[in-house]
């Protein structure tokens, strides 16, 4: 199993326009560029490969169907696809009662079977990914945990407050702090673009 070269992350909005026009070759290109990212995100959030696979199919079916709805002013194609994947994953998580247990399990299993990278597929050389990981590592552990629960766990701020036994204001404050930090990281990535700029339009 091999992952496509992550430098393909950079997809021009014109490709989306071609997909919207029914160009299957453009769609294949899009799939090859985004599928690993989106599948990894889905797998990380849902923890089950079969569910992640189903979700990936749903996301690409939606991209094929709704490509004309993509607005380049609102972000890069990858950001659009990631947002779509995350929302669909959250819908799935929220449709079950297993949300809290799921992310608790995820916390325990991080780096294990469910989310462990495929050695042959992992693309650690990706500069942006490394920069983001380094940036997240710079956050205090409690702030990082809070933003991960919100973004990847699909928990609401009140659910996070309950899970971490914290006042809601503290949760909100931590989320703001993490988001501000990520925003600064994004700014740095924009100023010093590497060979690829995954989230840039």
């Amino acid at each position, binding site marked *: 199993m091999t992952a496509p070269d992550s430098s393909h992350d950079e997809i021009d909005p014109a490709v989306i326009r071609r997909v919207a026009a029914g160009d299957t070759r453009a769609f294949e290109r899009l799939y090859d560029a985004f599928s690993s990212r989106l599948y990894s995100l889905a797998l990380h959030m849902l923890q089950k490969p079969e569910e992640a696979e189903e979700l990936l199919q749903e996301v690409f079916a939606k991209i094929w169907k709704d490509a004309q709805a993509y607005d380049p002013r609102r972000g890069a194609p990858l950001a659009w696809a990631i947002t779509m994947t995350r929302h669909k994953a959250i819908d799935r998580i929220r449709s079950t009662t297993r949300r809290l247990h799921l992310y608790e399990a995820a916390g325990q299993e991080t780096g294990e079977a469910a989310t462990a990278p495929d050695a042959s597929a992992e693309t650690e050389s990706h500069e942006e990914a490394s920069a983001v990981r380094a940036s997240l590592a710079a956050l205090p552990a409690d702030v990082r945990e809070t933003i991960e629960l919100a973004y990847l766990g699909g928990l609401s701020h009140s659910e996070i407050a309950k899970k971490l036994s914290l006042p809601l204001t503290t949760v909100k404050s931590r989320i703001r702090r993490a988001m501000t930090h990520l925003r600064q990281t*994004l700014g740095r990535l924009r100023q010093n673009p590497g060979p690829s700029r995954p989230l840039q339009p």
Partner: protein
Amino acid sequence: MSEEEREELASLYALGLLEGDELKDFEQALARDPKLVALVAEFEEASNLLALSIPQRAAPPLTRLAIMRAIDAQQESVGHPEKARAAAYNWAPWALAAALAILCAITFAEKSRLGAAKARLEGDNRNLQARVTNLGVERDRLQTRITALEEEKTNLEIRVATFEAREPLKEIQNVALAPQQGAPTKSNLTALWDQGRQTGVLDLAGLPPPPPDRDYQLWIIPSATAAPLDAGILTSAVGARAIFQSPQEVTKIAAIAISLEPKGGSISPQGPVIYVGKM
């Protein structure tokens, strides 16, 4: 809204965490603040960096195959010339279906409207029924009151008629009670007797208190039997007016008398009779 609040709300919104009034208020603010829109977009993009931090795994190869087959199948279906022709010539059933759909939609809308009107009228009807019930209760209450007032009116009319039929002055008799041997005063006591009411008033002015071990007792002597009827002890009424009544109805009184009895009075006169007034 402070800059900190803006950032906090924009962060939460970008993550899809705002709910209820907070969400509504923020979306209203977004509608009139392009800078806030830009801030949210930036936070959304920044939040997606978290997805990049996840170690990548390749999607299963069969997934690609499945998706591409589904897309190809869809393309073939839409692009097939025969199907396209058939679609062109078979518009009539679709038009009929569309017409039926519109008819259904109109029927449904009308049904909804009538349903709402019916529900409203049923509500009004329930309110009116409750009002009618309340008015019925009020009517019964007033009817009862009217009956009571009419009864009272009848009674009053009877009383008025009775009073009108009477000649009060004829029925009231004046009697002077003359002192007898042993009377504490030499002057008469005066009494008035109302035959109709069987009630009398005795003026006790000038009557001194009785001896400590004695009481003044009033007696009514009916004409028919001449047996004295106890009309009460006068002790407490000394020096004032005493109202007395006959213990039983007396058609005609022969006399009124006062005797000096042992303390507490007697069933029949035991002591000396000190005043007597003949009618």
